[in-house]
Protein backbone atom coordinates (compact mmCIF):
# COMPACT_ATOMS: atom_id res chain seq x y z
CA UNK A 1 0.00 0.00 0.00
CA UNK A 2 1.51 3.32 -0.94
CA UNK A 3 0.91 6.41 1.10
CA UNK A 4 3.37 8.70 -0.61
CA UNK A 5 1.68 11.04 -3.02
CA UNK A 6 3.56 11.26 -6.32
CA UNK A 7 0.82 13.01 -8.23
CA UNK A 8 1.44 16.68 -8.83
CA UNK A 9 0.36 18.61 -5.75
CA UNK A 10 1.31 22.17 -6.61
CA UNK A 11 -0.95 24.34 -8.71
CA UNK A 12 2.16 25.74 -10.29
CA UNK A 13 4.95 23.14 -9.95
CA UNK A 14 7.43 25.48 -11.63
CA UNK A 15 7.04 27.93 -8.76
CA UNK A 16 7.97 25.27 -6.21
CA UNK A 17 10.96 24.08 -8.17
CA UNK A 18 12.08 27.67 -8.64
CA UNK A 19 11.71 28.45 -4.95
CA UNK A 20 14.08 25.69 -3.93
CA UNK A 21 16.49 26.52 -6.71
CA UNK A 22 16.64 30.16 -5.70
CA UNK A 23 17.29 29.24 -2.12
CA UNK A 24 20.47 27.52 -3.30
CA UNK A 25 21.53 30.14 -5.82
CA UNK A 26 24.89 31.65 -5.01
CA UNK A 27 25.69 29.15 -2.30
CA UNK A 28 28.92 27.19 -2.01
CA UNK A 29 28.43 23.43 -2.14
CA UNK A 30 28.90 23.12 1.62
CA UNK A 31 26.24 25.75 2.32
CA UNK A 32 23.93 24.07 -0.18
CA UNK A 33 24.39 20.74 1.55
CA UNK A 34 23.61 22.33 4.89
CA UNK A 35 20.50 23.98 3.50
CA UNK A 36 19.23 20.76 1.94
CA UNK A 37 19.89 18.84 5.11
CA UNK A 38 17.91 21.27 7.22
CA UNK A 39 15.15 21.30 4.63
CA UNK A 40 14.86 17.51 4.58
CA UNK A 41 14.55 17.39 8.35
CA UNK A 42 11.98 20.21 8.48
CA UNK A 43 9.84 18.67 5.76
CA UNK A 44 10.15 15.15 7.16
CA UNK A 45 8.85 16.40 10.48
CA UNK A 46 6.04 18.26 8.76
CA UNK A 47 4.96 15.04 7.09
CA UNK A 48 5.28 13.25 10.42
CA UNK A 49 4.61 9.80 9.00
CA UNK A 50 7.30 7.10 8.97
CA UNK A 51 5.62 5.12 6.20
CA UNK A 52 5.57 8.11 3.88
CA UNK A 53 9.17 8.90 4.78
CA UNK A 54 10.24 5.32 4.08
CA UNK A 55 8.59 5.37 0.67
CA UNK A 56 10.07 8.76 -0.14
CA UNK A 57 13.55 7.50 0.77
CA UNK A 58 13.06 4.41 -1.39
CA UNK A 59 11.93 6.51 -4.35
CA UNK A 60 14.82 8.92 -3.88
CA UNK A 61 17.31 6.04 -3.71
CA UNK A 62 15.86 4.54 -6.85
CA UNK A 63 16.02 7.77 -8.80
CA UNK A 64 19.50 8.62 -7.50
CA UNK A 65 20.63 5.20 -8.68
CA UNK A 66 19.39 5.99 -12.20
CA UNK A 67 21.36 9.20 -12.52
Amino acid at each position, binding site marked *: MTKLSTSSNFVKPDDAFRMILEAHRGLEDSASHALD*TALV*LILANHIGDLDVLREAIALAEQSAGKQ
Partner: protein
Amino acid sequence: MSAVRQFGYSRHPDQDRDRLRAAHHDVVVVGAGPVGLSLAIDLAQRGQRVVLLDDADRIGEGSRAICFSKRSLEYWDRLGVGQRMVDKGVVWKVGKIFARDALLYQFDLLPEPGHKRPAFINLQQYYAESYLADRTAELAAIDLRWSNKVTSLERHNDHCELTIETPDGPYRVSASYVVACDGARSALRGMVGADFEGQAFEDQFLIADVKMTAAFPTERWFWFDPPFHSGRSALLHRQPDDVWRIDLQLSRDADPAVERRPENVRPRIERMLGNGNFEFEWISVYRFHCRRMRRFVHDRVIFAGDSAHQVSPFGARGANSGLEDAENLAWKLALVLSGDAPESLIESYNTERSAAADENIRESTRSTDFMAPATAQEARMRQAILALAKDTEFAKRMVNGGRLSVPSVYDTPLSTPDADEWSAGPRPGSSLVDAPLTDDGKDIYLSDAFAENRDGFALLEFANGTSAEIDANVRRIWIGGDGLADTEGLAMKRYDATPGAAYLLRPDGYVAARFRHPSKDGVAAALARANGLQ
Protein backbone atom coordinates in the same frame (compact mmCIF):
# COMPACT_ATOMS: atom_id res chain seq x y z
CA MET B 1 41.29 6.66 45.40
CA SER B 2 38.08 4.77 45.48
CA ALA B 3 37.30 2.55 48.42
CA VAL B 4 38.62 -0.88 47.58
CA ARG B 5 37.04 -3.57 49.67
CA GLN B 6 38.89 -6.78 50.22
CA PHE B 7 37.20 -10.13 50.75
CA GLY B 8 38.92 -13.23 51.92
CA TYR B 9 39.35 -16.45 50.04
CA SER B 10 38.51 -19.47 52.13
CA ARG B 11 38.75 -23.08 51.26
CA HIS B 12 35.47 -24.90 50.78
CA PRO B 13 34.84 -28.60 51.57
CA ASP B 14 33.86 -29.03 47.88
CA GLN B 15 37.57 -28.64 47.15
CA ASP B 16 38.46 -31.71 49.19
CA ARG B 17 36.30 -34.02 47.16
CA ASP B 18 37.53 -36.59 44.78
CA ARG B 19 37.60 -35.36 41.21
CA LEU B 20 35.09 -38.02 40.16
CA ARG B 21 32.71 -37.25 42.99
CA ALA B 22 32.37 -33.52 42.52
CA ALA B 23 29.77 -31.80 44.68
CA HIS B 24 26.48 -31.09 42.95
CA HIS B 25 24.60 -27.78 43.23
CA ASP B 26 21.28 -26.68 41.79
CA VAL B 27 22.53 -23.30 40.62
CA VAL B 28 25.99 -21.89 40.22
CA VAL B 29 26.18 -18.19 39.39
CA VAL B 30 29.50 -17.15 37.87
CA GLY B 31 30.50 -13.53 38.52
CA ALA B 32 29.75 -11.35 41.53
CA GLY B 33 29.19 -8.08 39.69
CA PRO B 34 25.93 -6.18 40.20
CA VAL B 35 24.03 -8.72 38.10
CA GLY B 36 25.37 -11.94 39.65
CA LEU B 37 25.02 -10.57 43.19
CA SER B 38 21.42 -9.43 42.62
CA LEU B 39 20.48 -12.69 40.96
CA ALA B 40 21.94 -14.73 43.81
CA ILE B 41 20.00 -12.70 46.39
CA ASP B 42 16.79 -13.01 44.41
CA LEU B 43 17.17 -16.78 44.03
CA ALA B 44 17.99 -17.18 47.71
CA GLN B 45 14.94 -15.17 48.70
CA ARG B 46 12.91 -17.54 46.56
CA GLY B 47 14.18 -20.48 48.57
CA GLN B 48 17.00 -21.65 46.31
CA ARG B 49 20.51 -22.44 47.43
CA VAL B 50 23.08 -20.66 45.27
CA VAL B 51 26.82 -20.96 44.82
CA LEU B 52 28.23 -17.62 43.63
CA LEU B 53 31.77 -17.61 42.24
CA ASP B 54 34.03 -14.67 41.50
CA ASP B 55 37.56 -14.73 40.21
CA ALA B 56 38.55 -11.62 42.16
CA ASP B 57 38.70 -11.12 45.89
CA ARG B 58 37.93 -7.44 46.00
CA ILE B 59 35.55 -4.81 44.72
CA GLY B 60 36.00 -1.14 44.20
CA GLU B 61 38.79 -0.80 41.73
CA GLY B 62 38.01 1.53 38.93
CA SER B 63 34.81 3.28 38.25
CA ARG B 64 32.06 2.24 35.96
CA ALA B 65 28.29 2.61 36.35
CA ILE B 66 26.95 5.57 38.26
CA CYS B 67 23.31 6.01 37.17
CA PHE B 68 20.83 3.52 38.61
CA SER B 69 17.25 3.68 37.45
CA LYS B 70 13.95 3.75 39.30
CA ARG B 71 13.28 0.25 38.06
CA SER B 72 16.60 -0.99 39.49
CA LEU B 73 15.84 0.69 42.82
CA GLU B 74 12.42 -0.95 42.95
CA TYR B 75 14.11 -4.28 42.29
CA TRP B 76 16.70 -3.62 44.98
CA ASP B 77 13.87 -2.74 47.37
CA ARG B 78 12.61 -6.26 46.86
CA LEU B 79 16.11 -7.58 47.51
CA GLY B 80 16.28 -5.59 50.76
CA VAL B 81 19.00 -3.14 49.68
CA GLY B 82 17.07 -0.32 47.98
CA GLN B 83 16.98 2.06 50.91
CA ARG B 84 20.69 1.79 51.55
CA MET B 85 21.41 2.64 47.91
CA VAL B 86 19.08 5.63 47.98
CA ASP B 87 20.46 6.90 51.31
CA LYS B 88 23.97 6.93 49.93
CA GLY B 89 23.14 7.95 46.36
CA VAL B 90 22.35 11.37 44.95
CA VAL B 91 18.86 11.69 43.54
CA TRP B 92 18.30 13.33 40.18
CA LYS B 93 15.77 13.59 37.40
CA VAL B 94 16.68 16.61 35.29
CA GLY B 95 19.01 16.53 32.33
CA LYS B 96 20.24 19.58 30.43
CA ILE B 97 21.62 19.64 26.93
CA PHE B 98 23.88 22.46 25.85
CA ALA B 99 25.11 23.32 22.37
CA ARG B 100 28.27 25.44 22.44
CA ASP B 101 27.63 27.42 25.61
CA ALA B 102 23.85 27.84 25.36
CA LEU B 103 21.20 25.69 26.98
CA LEU B 104 19.32 23.92 24.21
CA TYR B 105 16.70 22.17 26.25
CA GLN B 106 16.13 20.23 29.43
CA PHE B 107 14.19 17.12 30.30
CA ASP B 108 12.59 15.82 33.46
CA LEU B 109 12.59 12.04 33.75
CA LEU B 110 9.92 11.89 36.45
CA PRO B 111 7.66 14.88 36.23
CA GLU B 112 4.86 13.52 38.44
CA PRO B 113 4.88 12.98 42.23
CA GLY B 114 3.53 9.88 43.99
CA HIS B 115 6.37 7.43 43.33
CA LYS B 116 8.45 5.87 46.08
CA ARG B 117 11.65 5.93 44.09
CA PRO B 118 13.22 8.76 42.08
CA ALA B 119 13.88 8.58 38.35
CA PHE B 120 17.56 7.91 39.04
CA ILE B 121 20.20 7.94 41.69
CA ASN B 122 23.87 8.30 41.04
CA LEU B 123 25.98 5.92 43.05
CA GLN B 124 29.43 4.52 42.36
CA GLN B 125 29.12 0.94 41.17
CA TYR B 126 31.48 -0.20 43.94
CA TYR B 127 29.05 1.02 46.59
CA ALA B 128 26.22 -0.84 44.90
CA GLU B 129 28.32 -4.01 44.75
CA SER B 130 29.44 -3.58 48.32
CA TYR B 131 25.88 -3.25 49.66
CA LEU B 132 24.78 -6.24 47.61
CA ALA B 133 27.71 -8.26 48.96
CA ASP B 134 26.65 -7.33 52.51
CA ARG B 135 23.15 -8.55 51.75
CA THR B 136 24.43 -11.89 50.46
CA ALA B 137 26.13 -12.39 53.84
CA GLU B 138 22.71 -12.20 55.54
CA LEU B 139 21.36 -15.05 53.45
CA ALA B 140 22.48 -18.50 54.51
CA ALA B 141 21.39 -19.94 51.16
CA ILE B 142 24.16 -18.02 49.35
CA ASP B 143 27.60 -19.52 49.27
CA LEU B 144 29.84 -16.77 47.89
CA ARG B 145 33.33 -17.94 46.99
CA TRP B 146 35.93 -15.27 46.15
CA SER B 147 39.09 -16.06 44.17
CA ASN B 148 37.20 -18.86 42.43
CA LYS B 149 37.74 -18.62 38.70
CA VAL B 150 35.84 -20.82 36.30
CA THR B 151 38.30 -22.16 33.77
CA SER B 152 36.29 -24.80 31.97
CA LEU B 153 32.77 -25.95 31.43
CA GLU B 154 31.41 -29.24 30.16
CA ARG B 155 27.80 -29.47 29.14
CA HIS B 156 25.78 -32.64 29.67
CA ASN B 157 22.10 -33.33 29.10
CA ASP B 158 20.87 -32.52 32.56
CA HIS B 159 23.82 -30.81 34.20
CA CYS B 160 27.11 -29.01 33.65
CA GLU B 161 30.52 -29.57 35.12
CA LEU B 162 32.76 -26.68 36.01
CA THR B 163 36.44 -26.57 36.74
CA ILE B 164 37.31 -23.81 39.17
CA GLU B 165 40.78 -22.42 39.78
CA THR B 166 41.60 -21.23 43.30
CA PRO B 167 44.70 -20.20 45.27
CA ASP B 168 44.71 -23.84 46.50
CA GLY B 169 44.54 -25.23 43.00
CA PRO B 170 41.62 -26.40 40.88
CA TYR B 171 38.49 -28.32 41.84
CA ARG B 172 35.29 -29.35 40.13
CA VAL B 173 31.60 -28.99 40.84
CA SER B 174 28.53 -29.99 38.91
CA ALA B 175 25.41 -27.88 38.60
CA SER B 176 21.90 -28.29 37.26
CA TYR B 177 22.06 -24.70 35.98
CA VAL B 178 24.92 -22.31 35.48
CA VAL B 179 24.18 -18.62 35.14
CA ALA B 180 27.04 -16.76 33.48
CA CYS B 181 27.19 -13.22 34.91
CA ASP B 182 30.87 -12.96 34.14
CA GLY B 183 30.82 -9.62 32.36
CA ALA B 184 31.56 -8.33 28.88
CA ARG B 185 34.72 -10.40 28.52
CA SER B 186 32.83 -13.52 29.55
CA ALA B 187 34.94 -16.64 29.34
CA LEU B 188 31.83 -18.79 29.60
CA ARG B 189 30.57 -17.34 26.34
CA GLY B 190 33.57 -18.88 24.65
CA MET B 191 33.11 -22.12 26.57
CA VAL B 192 29.66 -22.65 25.02
CA GLY B 193 31.02 -21.68 21.61
CA ALA B 194 28.87 -18.58 21.23
CA ASP B 195 29.94 -15.26 19.79
CA PHE B 196 29.24 -11.63 20.47
CA GLU B 197 27.85 -9.71 17.50
CA GLY B 198 27.40 -6.02 16.94
CA GLN B 199 29.01 -2.69 16.35
CA ALA B 200 32.18 -1.13 17.68
CA PHE B 201 32.47 2.66 17.75
CA GLU B 202 35.73 4.20 16.67
CA ASP B 203 35.51 7.29 18.82
CA GLN B 204 37.18 7.15 22.19
CA PHE B 205 35.90 8.60 25.42
CA LEU B 206 37.89 9.80 28.37
CA ILE B 207 36.11 9.08 31.65
CA ALA B 208 37.43 10.85 34.71
CA ASP B 209 36.05 10.83 38.22
CA VAL B 210 37.24 13.94 40.03
CA LYS B 211 36.83 14.99 43.61
CA MET B 212 35.92 18.61 44.19
CA THR B 213 33.49 20.79 46.06
CA ALA B 214 31.37 22.48 43.45
CA ALA B 215 28.03 24.17 43.40
CA PHE B 216 26.69 22.63 40.16
CA PRO B 217 23.19 21.24 40.61
CA THR B 218 22.56 17.51 40.70
CA GLU B 219 21.57 17.35 37.05
CA ARG B 220 22.95 15.53 34.07
CA TRP B 221 24.72 18.15 31.93
CA PHE B 222 25.64 17.23 28.41
CA TRP B 223 27.37 19.48 25.91
CA PHE B 224 27.75 19.30 22.17
CA ASP B 225 30.75 21.26 20.97
CA PRO B 226 31.37 23.23 24.17
CA PRO B 227 33.88 26.11 24.14
CA PHE B 228 36.11 24.15 26.57
CA HIS B 229 36.22 21.04 24.36
CA SER B 230 35.68 22.25 20.86
CA GLY B 231 34.03 20.01 18.28
CA ARG B 232 33.31 17.14 20.67
CA SER B 233 30.90 16.21 23.43
CA ALA B 234 31.21 16.42 27.20
CA LEU B 235 29.25 15.27 30.22
CA LEU B 236 29.22 16.28 33.88
CA HIS B 237 27.33 14.41 36.57
CA ARG B 238 27.50 14.38 40.36
CA GLN B 239 28.15 11.28 42.47
CA PRO B 240 28.22 10.88 46.26
CA ASP B 241 31.30 11.93 48.27
CA ASP B 242 31.85 15.12 46.19
CA VAL B 243 32.95 13.03 43.25
CA TRP B 244 31.99 14.12 39.75
CA ARG B 245 31.90 12.05 36.61
CA ILE B 246 33.37 13.84 33.62
CA ASP B 247 33.18 12.31 30.24
CA LEU B 248 35.05 13.84 27.28
CA GLN B 249 34.86 12.57 23.74
CA LEU B 250 38.29 12.13 22.16
CA SER B 251 39.26 11.66 18.57
CA ARG B 252 39.37 8.29 16.88
CA ASP B 253 43.12 8.24 16.62
CA ALA B 254 43.91 9.51 20.13
CA ASP B 255 46.46 7.36 21.92
CA PRO B 256 44.73 6.03 25.05
CA ALA B 257 48.00 5.52 26.92
CA VAL B 258 48.86 9.19 26.42
CA GLU B 259 45.36 10.55 27.02
CA ARG B 260 45.04 8.68 30.28
CA ARG B 261 48.03 10.39 31.86
CA PRO B 262 46.92 12.75 34.63
CA GLU B 263 49.16 15.55 33.35
CA ASN B 264 47.30 15.42 30.02
CA VAL B 265 43.84 15.10 31.54
CA ARG B 266 44.31 17.94 34.01
CA PRO B 267 44.40 20.82 31.48
CA ARG B 268 41.32 19.48 29.71
CA ILE B 269 39.36 19.50 32.94
CA GLU B 270 40.73 22.85 34.06
CA ARG B 271 39.42 24.31 30.82
CA MET B 272 36.03 22.79 31.56
CA LEU B 273 35.74 23.83 35.20
CA GLY B 274 37.62 27.10 34.98
CA ASN B 275 39.86 26.12 37.88
CA GLY B 276 42.26 23.45 39.08
CA ASN B 277 40.73 22.70 42.48
CA PHE B 278 40.09 19.01 42.00
CA GLU B 279 41.78 15.69 42.49
CA PHE B 280 41.53 12.59 40.36
CA GLU B 281 39.75 9.54 41.70
CA TRP B 282 40.00 7.54 38.52
CA ILE B 283 40.82 8.02 34.84
CA SER B 284 40.16 5.68 31.97
CA VAL B 285 39.76 5.74 28.21
CA TYR B 286 37.08 3.65 26.54
CA ARG B 287 36.03 2.67 23.08
CA PHE B 288 32.42 1.52 23.22
CA HIS B 289 30.61 -1.44 21.78
CA CYS B 290 27.00 -2.33 21.23
CA ARG B 291 26.70 -6.06 20.83
CA ARG B 292 24.88 -9.12 22.06
CA MET B 293 24.86 -12.89 21.98
CA ARG B 294 22.36 -14.31 19.57
CA ARG B 295 20.87 -16.51 22.29
CA PHE B 296 21.07 -16.00 26.04
CA VAL B 297 20.11 -19.57 26.88
CA HIS B 298 22.46 -22.39 25.89
CA ASP B 299 20.78 -25.44 27.34
CA ARG B 300 21.66 -25.23 31.01
CA VAL B 301 24.00 -22.30 30.74
CA ILE B 302 22.17 -19.00 30.90
CA PHE B 303 23.77 -15.63 30.25
CA ALA B 304 22.77 -12.42 32.06
CA GLY B 305 24.12 -8.89 32.16
CA ASP B 306 27.17 -7.74 30.21
CA SER B 307 28.14 -11.31 29.33
CA ALA B 308 24.98 -11.46 27.20
CA HIS B 309 24.84 -7.90 25.89
CA GLN B 310 26.91 -4.78 26.00
CA VAL B 311 25.95 -1.17 25.30
CA SER B 312 27.68 2.19 25.30
CA PRO B 313 27.03 3.98 28.60
CA PHE B 314 25.09 6.97 27.27
CA GLY B 315 21.69 5.70 28.31
CA ALA B 316 22.76 4.07 31.58
CA ARG B 317 21.47 0.87 30.08
CA GLY B 318 24.29 -1.52 31.02
CA ALA B 319 23.90 -2.42 34.66
CA ASN B 320 20.25 -1.37 34.68
CA SER B 321 19.37 -3.79 31.91
CA GLY B 322 21.48 -6.50 33.52
CA LEU B 323 19.44 -6.09 36.68
CA GLU B 324 16.29 -6.47 34.61
CA ASP B 325 17.79 -9.72 33.32
CA ALA B 326 18.30 -10.91 36.88
CA GLU B 327 14.78 -10.10 38.00
CA ASN B 328 13.36 -11.70 34.87
CA LEU B 329 15.35 -14.89 35.32
CA ALA B 330 15.27 -15.45 39.09
CA TRP B 331 11.61 -16.34 39.52
CA LYS B 332 11.54 -18.50 36.41
CA LEU B 333 14.60 -20.47 37.42
CA ALA B 334 13.23 -20.88 40.95
CA LEU B 335 9.93 -22.24 39.62
CA VAL B 336 11.72 -24.65 37.30
CA LEU B 337 14.05 -25.87 40.04
CA SER B 338 11.19 -26.46 42.45
CA GLY B 339 9.34 -28.40 39.76
CA ASP B 340 6.44 -25.94 39.61
CA ALA B 341 7.04 -24.88 36.03
CA PRO B 342 8.34 -26.65 32.94
CA GLU B 343 11.92 -26.11 31.84
CA SER B 344 10.58 -24.33 28.78
CA LEU B 345 9.70 -21.35 30.98
CA ILE B 346 13.40 -20.44 30.75
CA GLU B 347 12.95 -19.90 27.02
CA SER B 348 10.71 -16.92 27.81
CA TYR B 349 13.73 -15.35 29.52
CA ASN B 350 15.53 -15.58 26.20
CA THR B 351 12.56 -14.14 24.29
CA GLU B 352 11.85 -11.28 26.67
CA ARG B 353 15.39 -10.23 27.44
CA SER B 354 16.60 -10.59 23.83
CA ALA B 355 13.99 -8.11 22.72
CA ALA B 356 14.98 -5.83 25.58
CA ALA B 357 18.65 -6.10 24.58
CA ASP B 358 17.75 -5.16 21.00
CA GLU B 359 15.94 -2.10 22.26
CA ASN B 360 18.80 -1.08 24.53
CA ILE B 361 21.32 -1.59 21.76
CA ARG B 362 19.18 0.38 19.33
CA GLU B 363 18.83 3.30 21.73
CA SER B 364 22.45 3.44 22.79
CA THR B 365 23.67 2.99 19.21
CA ARG B 366 21.57 5.94 18.10
CA SER B 367 22.93 8.10 20.92
CA THR B 368 26.51 7.13 20.19
CA ASP B 369 26.05 7.73 16.47
CA PHE B 370 24.59 11.16 17.18
CA MET B 371 27.56 12.04 19.39
CA ALA B 372 30.12 10.64 17.02
CA PRO B 373 28.86 11.08 13.45
CA ALA B 374 30.51 8.56 11.17
CA THR B 375 30.36 10.47 7.86
CA ALA B 376 30.32 14.06 6.63
CA GLN B 377 26.60 13.87 5.95
CA GLU B 378 25.88 12.47 9.43
CA ALA B 379 27.81 15.41 10.84
CA ARG B 380 25.76 17.82 8.68
CA MET B 381 22.52 16.25 9.87
CA ARG B 382 23.56 16.63 13.45
CA GLN B 383 24.63 20.22 12.82
CA ALA B 384 21.26 20.98 11.25
CA ILE B 385 19.38 19.48 14.19
CA LEU B 386 21.44 21.36 16.76
CA ALA B 387 20.90 24.63 14.89
CA LEU B 388 17.16 24.05 14.40
CA ALA B 389 16.75 22.96 18.02
CA LYS B 390 17.24 26.50 19.27
CA ASP B 391 13.88 27.52 17.87
CA THR B 392 11.88 24.41 17.08
CA GLU B 393 10.33 21.77 19.27
CA PHE B 394 10.72 19.00 16.72
CA ALA B 395 14.47 19.38 16.44
CA LYS B 396 14.94 19.58 20.22
CA ARG B 397 13.39 16.15 20.41
CA MET B 398 15.82 14.81 17.82
CA VAL B 399 18.88 15.98 19.76
CA ASN B 400 20.25 12.78 21.20
CA GLY B 401 22.56 13.18 24.16
CA GLY B 402 21.53 9.80 25.60
CA ARG B 403 18.09 8.28 26.09
CA LEU B 404 18.04 7.04 29.63
CA SER B 405 17.07 3.56 30.65
CA VAL B 406 13.38 2.81 31.04
CA PRO B 407 11.97 -0.63 31.84
CA SER B 408 11.30 -2.76 28.78
CA VAL B 409 7.82 -3.76 27.68
CA TYR B 410 7.56 -7.41 26.63
CA ASP B 411 5.58 -8.92 23.81
CA THR B 412 5.58 -12.32 25.34
CA PRO B 413 3.73 -15.61 25.26
CA LEU B 414 3.43 -15.35 29.05
CA SER B 415 0.99 -12.43 28.76
CA THR B 416 -2.74 -12.89 28.39
CA PRO B 417 -3.98 -10.33 25.85
CA ASP B 418 -6.58 -7.85 27.06
CA ALA B 419 -10.16 -9.00 26.60
CA ASP B 420 -11.64 -5.83 28.10
CA GLU B 421 -11.37 -2.19 27.11
CA TRP B 422 -8.60 -0.21 28.79
CA SER B 423 -7.69 3.37 28.01
CA ALA B 424 -4.63 3.58 30.26
CA GLY B 425 -2.67 1.61 32.83
CA PRO B 426 0.23 -0.81 32.26
CA ARG B 427 -0.71 -3.30 29.57
CA PRO B 428 0.23 -6.97 29.89
CA GLY B 429 3.98 -7.20 29.43
CA SER B 430 4.66 -3.85 31.13
CA SER B 431 6.01 -3.32 34.60
CA LEU B 432 4.23 -2.20 37.70
CA VAL B 433 3.56 1.53 37.99
CA ASP B 434 3.96 2.93 41.48
CA ALA B 435 1.28 4.89 43.36
CA PRO B 436 0.92 6.32 46.87
CA LEU B 437 -1.43 4.49 49.27
CA THR B 438 -2.15 4.39 52.97
CA ASP B 439 -2.24 1.34 55.20
CA ASP B 440 -4.23 2.03 58.40
CA GLY B 441 -3.38 5.69 58.05
CA LYS B 442 0.31 5.01 57.44
CA ASP B 443 1.79 6.15 54.11
CA ILE B 444 3.05 3.36 51.90
CA TYR B 445 3.51 2.83 48.19
CA LEU B 446 2.11 0.21 45.92
CA SER B 447 5.70 -0.88 45.25
CA ASP B 448 6.09 -1.51 49.02
CA ALA B 449 2.95 -3.62 49.08
CA PHE B 450 4.28 -5.58 46.13
CA ALA B 451 7.77 -5.92 47.67
CA GLU B 452 6.32 -7.67 50.73
CA ASN B 453 5.34 -10.40 48.35
CA ARG B 454 8.80 -11.59 47.52
CA ASP B 455 8.21 -14.97 46.10
CA GLY B 456 5.11 -15.27 44.06
CA PHE B 457 2.40 -13.90 41.84
CA ALA B 458 0.08 -11.22 43.20
CA LEU B 459 -3.38 -10.08 42.27
CA LEU B 460 -3.82 -6.35 42.55
CA GLU B 461 -7.54 -5.83 43.12
CA PHE B 462 -9.59 -2.69 43.24
CA ALA B 463 -12.30 -3.34 45.79
CA ASN B 464 -15.87 -3.93 44.88
CA GLY B 465 -17.45 -5.88 47.72
CA THR B 466 -15.98 -9.37 47.71
CA SER B 467 -12.67 -10.29 46.17
CA ALA B 468 -12.27 -12.74 43.31
CA GLU B 469 -11.79 -16.41 44.14
CA ILE B 470 -8.29 -17.35 43.11
CA ASP B 471 -5.45 -19.81 43.49
CA ALA B 472 -4.29 -19.95 47.10
CA ASN B 473 -0.68 -19.33 46.02
CA VAL B 474 -1.50 -15.93 44.66
CA ARG B 475 -1.15 -13.12 47.13
CA ARG B 476 -3.69 -10.31 47.08
CA ILE B 477 -3.03 -6.62 47.13
CA TRP B 478 -6.38 -5.17 47.96
CA ILE B 479 -7.00 -1.50 47.27
CA GLY B 480 -10.11 0.24 48.66
CA GLY B 481 -12.75 -1.24 50.97
CA ASP B 482 -11.01 -2.52 54.09
CA GLY B 483 -7.66 -2.82 52.27
CA LEU B 484 -5.09 -0.19 51.35
CA ALA B 485 -6.59 3.25 50.83
CA ASP B 486 -6.03 5.04 47.55
CA THR B 487 -6.40 8.44 49.26
CA GLU B 488 -5.24 10.49 46.32
CA GLY B 489 -7.01 8.32 43.75
CA LEU B 490 -3.72 7.91 41.87
CA ALA B 491 -3.68 4.11 41.90
CA MET B 492 -7.15 4.07 40.41
CA LYS B 493 -6.05 6.55 37.77
CA ARG B 494 -2.68 5.00 36.92
CA TYR B 495 -4.30 1.59 36.49
CA ASP B 496 -7.38 2.90 34.67
CA ALA B 497 -9.26 0.93 37.31
CA THR B 498 -12.97 0.53 37.84
CA PRO B 499 -14.40 -1.13 40.97
CA GLY B 500 -13.70 -4.86 40.77
CA ALA B 501 -10.84 -4.53 38.28
CA ALA B 502 -7.74 -6.64 38.87
CA TYR B 503 -4.15 -6.93 37.61
CA LEU B 504 -2.28 -10.21 37.82
CA LEU B 505 1.37 -9.40 38.59
CA ARG B 506 4.26 -11.74 37.90
CA PRO B 507 6.91 -12.23 40.59
CA ASP B 508 9.11 -9.69 38.74
CA GLY B 509 6.41 -7.04 38.94
CA TYR B 510 5.31 -7.34 35.33
CA VAL B 511 1.64 -7.42 34.41
CA ALA B 512 0.63 -10.91 33.22
CA ALA B 513 -3.06 -10.13 32.66
CA ARG B 514 -5.76 -7.67 33.66
CA PHE B 515 -9.48 -7.99 34.02
CA ARG B 516 -12.38 -5.61 34.50
CA HIS B 517 -14.23 -8.43 36.25
CA PRO B 518 -11.88 -11.28 37.14
CA SER B 519 -13.30 -14.78 37.20
CA LYS B 520 -11.73 -17.76 38.93
CA ASP B 521 -11.16 -19.51 35.61
CA GLY B 522 -9.87 -16.41 33.88
CA VAL B 523 -7.26 -15.77 36.54
CA ALA B 524 -6.30 -19.47 36.69
CA ALA B 525 -5.79 -19.58 32.91
CA ALA B 526 -3.68 -16.41 32.96
CA LEU B 527 -1.64 -17.80 35.81
CA ALA B 528 -1.01 -21.09 34.02
CA ARG B 529 0.05 -19.19 30.95
CA ALA B 530 2.44 -16.97 32.90
CA ASN B 531 3.97 -20.10 34.45
CA GLY B 532 4.64 -21.48 31.00
CA LEU B 533 2.11 -24.26 31.49
CA GLN B 534 0.37 -23.60 28.19
